């Protein structure tokens, strides 16, 4: 499903070069629930950005469903992100000027053909129902709690029915009860067939996934299958 081969990522400014990732080789199959852990600055988010096609590697290859995407143009990358990938961010990244329903609709705005007008609304409503927020559709993000915002973000990530969901510390800004609720939703999505890759600092949350990849100083230092109950 997602394959990273010999990935290297270097951030360059006029004076400094920072090696963020080096020699990353990773394959994530369909239906997996993978967590990525490591200390701050070890390259977890960079890795997630590369898998999500939000950034390009300095060297190496990224493959999604067997297609090498490294040389794709902006338009093709955008189409691929739109169709195959959903994102959940630690700080939710909702657009405060739009209602909950309008926020959830965003991925469908850029999808050609099947999702237009009323059917877009319908899909967005269904996604919100799935995360238990059908009663907050007309609210604005500023009127919601942290947990509710993250559920809206999950609804937005799943509205286009992507096969991959990338979550960057989805429980990082939430208390443990709310974090558990979010993890339950992610598990449910995984059970329905979505591949989920989650960056986290939280060992407890990581242990609830099926596979744990550990990074340190830009390198992959561990990759283990977990026994979950």
């Amino acid at each position, binding site marked *: 499903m997602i394959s990273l081969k010999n990935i290297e990522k270097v951030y360059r400014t006029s004076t400094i070069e920072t090696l963020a990732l080096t020699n990353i080789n990773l394959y994530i199959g369909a239906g997996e629930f993978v967590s990525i852990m490591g200390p701050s600055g070890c390259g977890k988010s960079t890795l997630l950005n590369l898998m999500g096609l939000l950034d390009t590697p300095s060297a190496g290859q990224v493959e999604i469903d067997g297609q090498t995407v490294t040389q794709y143009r*902006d338009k093709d990358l*955008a189409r691929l992100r739109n169709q195959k990938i959903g994102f959940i*961010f630690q700080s939710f*990244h909702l657009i405060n*000027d*739009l209602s909950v329903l*309008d926020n959830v609709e*965003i*991925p469908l705005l*850029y999808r050609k053909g099947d999702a237009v007008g009323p059917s877009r609304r319908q899909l967005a409503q269904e996604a919100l129902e799935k995360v238990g927020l059908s009663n907050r559709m007309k609210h604005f993000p500023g009127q919601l709690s942290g947990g509710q915002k993250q559920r809206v973000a999950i609804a937005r990530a799943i509205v286009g029915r992507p096969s991959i969901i990338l979550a960057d510390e989805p429980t990082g800004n939430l208390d443990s009860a709310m974090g558990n609720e979010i993890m339950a939703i992610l598990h449910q999505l995984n059970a329905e067939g979505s591949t989920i890759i989650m960056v986290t600092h939280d060992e407890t949350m990581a242990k609830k996934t099926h596979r744990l990849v550990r990074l340190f100083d830009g390198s992959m230092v561990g990759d283990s299958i977990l026994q979950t109950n």
Partner: protein
Amino acid sequence: MLTNYIKIAWKVLLRHPFYTFITLFGISLTLTVLIVLTSLMDHLIGSHYPETNRFRTLYVERMALTNKEKTMINSGSMSFKFLTDYAKTLKTPERVTIFSGDHKSNAYVGAQKIELNSRFTDAEYWRVLNFEFIEGKPFNEQNIANGDYVAVITDGFKKQYFNNSGELVVGKRIDIENVSYTVIGVVKGSPITRMFSYSDVFFPYTNPKSNYRSMEYGGSYMAMVQAKKEADLPAINEEFQARIKRIPITNIEAGFKDGSLEVRSEPFVQYFLNVLSEGDPARVATFYAIVGFILFMLIGLPVLNLVNLNVSRILERASEIGIRKAFGAPIRTLLWQFIIENIFITFIGGAIALMLTYALIYGINASGWIAYADLSINANIFIISLLICLVFGLLSGLIPALRMSKLNIADALKA
């Protein structure tokens, strides 16, 4: 998608009222100036009362006689006879009218002196121009042949001369320069800016003071040559110029023997430009350069300011750009989003500008600064205004949008 963009644009406007005020103030003020200028320009050169057929009329206003050595030029209006011989007898036009420029005259009502402008015209003048007769009718060929002492006056002059009385004045007598005339008609006056129709009083050209019998080429008359349709104008001009070329100029005037004679017959816009440039093509180029520069100052500088303002406003929205890109918005779509938003905001500014312009134009018309001013926002001006808004929106939105749409997604999400 469009609704989503407009919703966002509206929310962005509401987010920072002061920023919004500055933006809309800049846009609406600039557009107001542009629309008022366009309206003034239209007032000056468009086809308006009573010169509603300008678009299909050629103007013969001036002749220029140059001596053989090209050291002397004698230019001015023409004699009635000259225009009768060479313009009135043209075969291609629908109508040709010969009339004098306006002359200053005085009239006395009791002890009160009224300064007025008067003009001598033929009967065709009233068919070429579309004056609205409030009372009576124009003088006709019979009045002219009889040498009747009749006059058509404007409503403004009527008010002055008859002391604002509302009574009908056709058949009454007016004394101008110690000559008594019978009022035959009262027309709604023409603005002072329309030099071929502006006057307070119109007399038949057979009036003893008109000097219409002069045998010289030069004189105080001019002509309007009206075509059936605009497309006929080049053929009429060709016929007229062929006649002018055949005019013998061997014994015209001392010092101009074997010189050359130029008489232009031109559409109003060309005539207008020639008046401004005194017929010098270099001056026309300078005129266009000046207009271009003024337009640049009027549009370019506010656009640059808006670009600056928009860049900082859009930078605030980096996170939104990142989200949209992450969920599949290609650069081109984002580019359009920002351009559409900007055009939407510009159109709000444009709507305010139209209201301001309407108020300003109403003020100018009502103020009496320009006699009979009839500035308006007609369909043409409205369409031009919309185009100006569109150009303004595009210009001021494109650069910030380009800059924003190229933002790296990961960086944008960190903002």
